[in-house]
């Protein structure tokens, strides 16, 4: 399964990088004579309501999804790691305040936070990245905090302390690197979630603005012609499904590879 996941992700990355070369047509080139044309030899996936080639738009959409997914997860992980490690390491009142904020954020649906943030900072690709990043950080904060809490009592941390290491060195050089494997796994699956959230925002018209082809926005415009030209909604949806499946399978495979406890118990 991990192989399938890896293949899907590598495929997505390659498509995202080489999008301009792979597109048979320009993603914004309109052709009024070929509106909502079904898949054919010249337009493999058909065309949309403006006669734009769907294959080219799905390919370009991969780039948008991938960039948004990765960048927003990087923001989430960064915020989550900083807040989680401070909460776990210092404990007490600091921990209580930070954990409460994280729990509050976590208890709200990510889509609500993201919608609110987009409404405040305005629609567009950059604000979608920031909004998704700020919606998902709590899960990483909780994860890192838990890791730090259990590692803090590890003998090698005490050994490091007994050699005169400062809090800074203990936290950033020893505790954090040792807590990273579950974070990496969660982040992988998180990229999939972020892509879905981006599509949702795009579907609601709050993501990338036309003519930028976001999978969510493409599906949204396809709903109007669902019974005339179902391919407009099917192919972006299929692309998204495969992408999320890829990240989830890859994440599952990572859990087994990176499970340090299993590896060390031999």
């Amino acid at each position: 399964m991990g192989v399938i996941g890896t293949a899907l992700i590598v495929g997505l990355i390659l498509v995202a990088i080489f999008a301009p070369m792979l597109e048979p047509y320009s993603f914004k080139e309109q052709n009024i004579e070929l509106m909502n044309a079904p898949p054919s030899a010249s337009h493999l996936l058909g065309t949309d309501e403006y006669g734009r080639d769907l294959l080219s738009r799905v390919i370009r959409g991969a780039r948008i999804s991938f960039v948004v997914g990765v960048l927003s997860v990087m923001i989430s992980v960064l915020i989550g790691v900083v807040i989680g490690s401070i909460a776990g390491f210092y404990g007490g009142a600091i921990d209580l305040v930070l954990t409460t904020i994280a729990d509050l954020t976590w208890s709200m649906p990510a889509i609500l936070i993201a919608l609110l943030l987009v409404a405040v900072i305005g629609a567009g690709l950059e604000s979608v990245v920031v909004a998704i990043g700020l919606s998902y950080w709590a899960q990483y904060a909780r994860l890192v905090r838990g890791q730090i809490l259990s590692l803090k009592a590890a003998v090698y941390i005490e050994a490091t302390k007994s050699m005169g290491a400062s809090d800074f060195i203990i936290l950033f050089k020893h505790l954090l690197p040792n807590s990273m494997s579950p974070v990496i796994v969660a982040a992988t699956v998180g990229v999939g979630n972020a892509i879905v959230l981006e599509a949702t925002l795009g579907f609601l018209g709050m993501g990338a603005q036309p003519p930028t082809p976001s999978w969510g926005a493409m599906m949204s415009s396809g709903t109007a012609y669902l019974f005339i030209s179902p391919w407009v909604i099917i192919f972006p949806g299929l692309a998204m499904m495969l992408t999320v499946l890829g990240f989830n399978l890859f994440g599952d495979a990572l859990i087994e590879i990176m499970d340090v406890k299993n590896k060390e118990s031999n």
Partner: protein
Amino acid sequence: MTFLEVRDLEVEFQVDKKPVTPIEGVSFELNEKEVLGIVGETGSGKSLTAHAILGLSTLVGGKIRGSVKFEERELLSISEKEMQSIRGAQIAFIPQNPMTSLDPVYRVGDQIVEGLTQHTKIGKHKARQQVLDLMERLRIPKADRVFQQYPHQLSGGLKQRIVIAMGLCTNPRLLIADEPTTALDVTVQAQIMRLFGEMVADRGIGLFLITHDLGVIAQVCDKVAVMYAGNMVEFGKIEPVFNAPSHPYTKALLDCIPYIGMKKGSLSAIYGNVPTGGNYPSGCRYHPRCPHSFSPCETRVPALIQIEGGTRVACHLYQGKKDG
């Protein structure tokens, strides 16, 4: 000037909102060029005493009381920052469990170098060379290869020697070694103990050696402290304590040493177990297991008093002699 002086050391933890004192009434002195051995069964507070001297018990919320003077500085009242500059540099600690004392994500050589560069201004290259030299003196075969390896690639004995190298690399004034040779076989153990001996004699360091092994104590130590359930029950020079033990617990411990030629089945053991934290009996903590216990043992805690020969002992059998 006393090198290391510990007075009435006490460590208190809160367990279910009740205070538990796994260390109480621990007092001893150690001079330069001296080796102090600490013995006692598992759970007697040997390691915790070492942690308290280094101020490490605070890590899990314990309170340390009493006095720990190191070269005239009161370690229990200085700031954490000052303590960090002493830990590792002047007082080095060799932790008990080599299997878990190394950070799994770094090469072992880099971990030793980290300890060295934390306290001395030394170039990366020079530090590496110094560490390799030390590793060779610790009889680590193929030191430059071991330097590059991760903890999970090393055997227990090698890890133990890496941990020892981490303690020795900064040339500390005082070395606290918590069972440093338990994972090593006897031949390597002897080499390591000889190396410790050289460091004590040549560099004049003080060595605080925690061990189960009374044989090691008899061979290398100048002084010995016997601990039981967090109390120090006997402290003194090695000869009087081993030749004529005063405290019933010390006697019992020495009786437990097997010797070649003894009759099968005649090995004696001390009945019962060391009480765990929170379940300490009233009065003298040893009295339920003590064959000599009498009425005051159950109610009053015996003070550590000096008897003939300079030995100090905490036992009601000797209290009367001082009073009368």
